[in-house]
């Protein structure tokens, strides 16, 4: 019995789809989508409202005279504090770049060895890494504070940057991706030709896993970019953008424009990065599955 086969979108063969089901799904998706999107949209609208429009009753979902004053206010509001707003941006960028770079280098070296070299203990190491995805940094915070104090890194950038180097999610994704996308035969033949392990890693494996390192960069960067008031840093001049913004937001409604502007500044970077790299991230996630 041949059933109805039709094609849709991506030239996929789609089977057994009822029109009612399609309509229902579209309806639910639209509804959900609106709920997800409205707060984001409202943030942007708020950030563009001049002061008098912020005080309209009832509040409006659109802006009549859009202005960038709120963004300028960000710098003025923070002007009261002796640390200039640009310093918070600098701190956040430095932490994000430094942490991400180290994480990328250490993780790809480690992922390659775990995925493509058969050495005693490889499975055990990976098992521990998998298990570490099961608990969050809250659990390790206390001891890390002590460790960082002993190292003398409290209240320095290092307290945020170095622990970020060994964040495991990126390593996990990269190892899984290497396993399914880098052919062992190619590596073997390179080794037979006398290439060292480091050379095979750098000139053969790494170019084949671009989506994975892009994903790792994005994950690491997002995490660090959004890192807030840390218990590891007290000095005002070393604090992050997220912290500075949370200070603005604690104000009254008159500040809600500036606060929304700050949020827009915060969110624009991760969202742009995701838009550019979405297809690579999804490709990486294709091998993210856990086998046991």
């Amino acid at each position, binding site marked *: 019995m041949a059933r109805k086969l039709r094609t849709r979108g991506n030239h996929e063969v789609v089977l057994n789809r009822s029109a009612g089901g399609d309509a229902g799904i579209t309806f639910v998706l639209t509804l959900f989508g609106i709920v997800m999107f409205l707060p984001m949209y409202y943030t942007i609208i708020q950030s563009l409202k001049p002061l008098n429009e912020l005080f309209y009753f009832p509040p409006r979902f659109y802006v009549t005279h859009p202005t960038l004053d709120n963004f300028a206010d960000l710098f003025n509001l923070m002007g009261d504090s002796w640390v200039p707003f640009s310093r918070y941006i600098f701190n956040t960028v430095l932490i994000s770049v430094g942490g991400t770079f180290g994480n990328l280098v250490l993780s790809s070296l480690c992922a390659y060895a775990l995925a493509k070299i058969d050495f005693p203990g490889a499975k055990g190491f990976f098992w521990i890494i998998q298990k570490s995805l099961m608990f969050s940094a809250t659990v390790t915070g206390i001891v890390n504070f002590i460790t960082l104090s002993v190292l003398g890194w409290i209240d320095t950038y290092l307290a945020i940057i170095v622990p970020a180097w060994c964040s495991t999610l990126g390593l996990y994704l990269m190892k899984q991706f290497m396993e399914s996308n880098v052919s062992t035969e190619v590596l073997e033949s390179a080794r037979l030709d006398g290439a060292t392990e480091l050379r095979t890693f750098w000139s053969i494996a790494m170019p084949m896993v671009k989506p994975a390192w892009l994903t790792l960069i994005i994950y690491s960067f997002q995490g660090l970019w959004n890192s807030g008031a840390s218990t590891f840093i007290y000095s005002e001049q070393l604090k992050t953008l997220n912290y500075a913004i949370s200070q603005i937001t604690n104000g009254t409604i008159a500040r809600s424009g500036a606060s929304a502007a700050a949020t827009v500044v915060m969110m624009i970077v991760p969202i742009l990065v995701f838009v550019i790299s979405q297809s690579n991230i999804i490709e990486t996630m294709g091998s*993210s599955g856990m086998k046991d």
Partner: protein
Amino acid sequence: MAKKEKQVKPLHEMTKSERTWFLIKRNKTAYFMIAPFMILFFIFTIIPVFLSLVLSLTSFNMLQWPKFVFLDNYVTLFLDDDLFITALKNTLIFAAVTGPASYIISFVVAWFINELPPKIRAVVTLVFYAPSIAGNVYLIWTTIFSSDSYGLMNGFLLQMGVIDSPILFFQNAKFVMPLCIAVALWTSLGTSFLAFIAGLQGINKSLFEAGAIDGIKNRWQELWYITLPSMKPQLMFGAIMSITGSFNFGGIVTALAGNPSVDYVAYTLTHHLEEYQNNRWEVGYASAISFLLFLMMIGMNVVITKLIAKLGD
């Protein structure tokens, strides 16, 4: 190099430990490659778990040497600390609601958008995923549910005549927990969501065709008999991401409802932990809380992944 290898016995003649040692020596590079990551990983993640267990058996204020008190901290937590019980209860409610809900929503949305044309799918993915990566965008909810009439919700309700005076949403014990859960869910379509999208895309299309020929009648049957079993590895990974995330919403609660929230209605273990660690410097006691949190996360993850592993077998 070549000279050395000549003196080595063939692999099958070696004893097990000789062979392991030989393989270790031969793969020296591998150990050098994992060393930098692994050393930091042990220092900042693995050792802290064990040390927090050790510290949890002590009374320690960071100034004097820790004093061994055996299980005193745990006894106090469960028998003599009402706030801990409140925090434990709230954390469990939070995890029990947001974990499964975010997992299911992530999957359902990923499944719904799976058959959309690629361009539209990319846009819809962004709409659903954006709240989870957009920094502290959840702060907008404090404006939406602001306690004066300039807040969106109060403005709307006042205009509709449902209420005569603004509701103090985040100061009202009735609203705090549900609102925090809703906002947490709003930000929770993260890594597992992307993993599900990728997993669904990766399923071999011929399976569906074969299924149709074998008599699968509609998309629900297809979901149950083909889709879910084919993406078990992603379901497993997604579960871990969702569960671990579901214990981690303390930051959102603080941002929305303050800490402590009114009547401690949304006071979680993270808050209790921070209180003892940062304000009271009772590090032993805080360690006990963090070790319990660790056990809860690992326990929940192990149980759920075991269940998923059984799915469809």
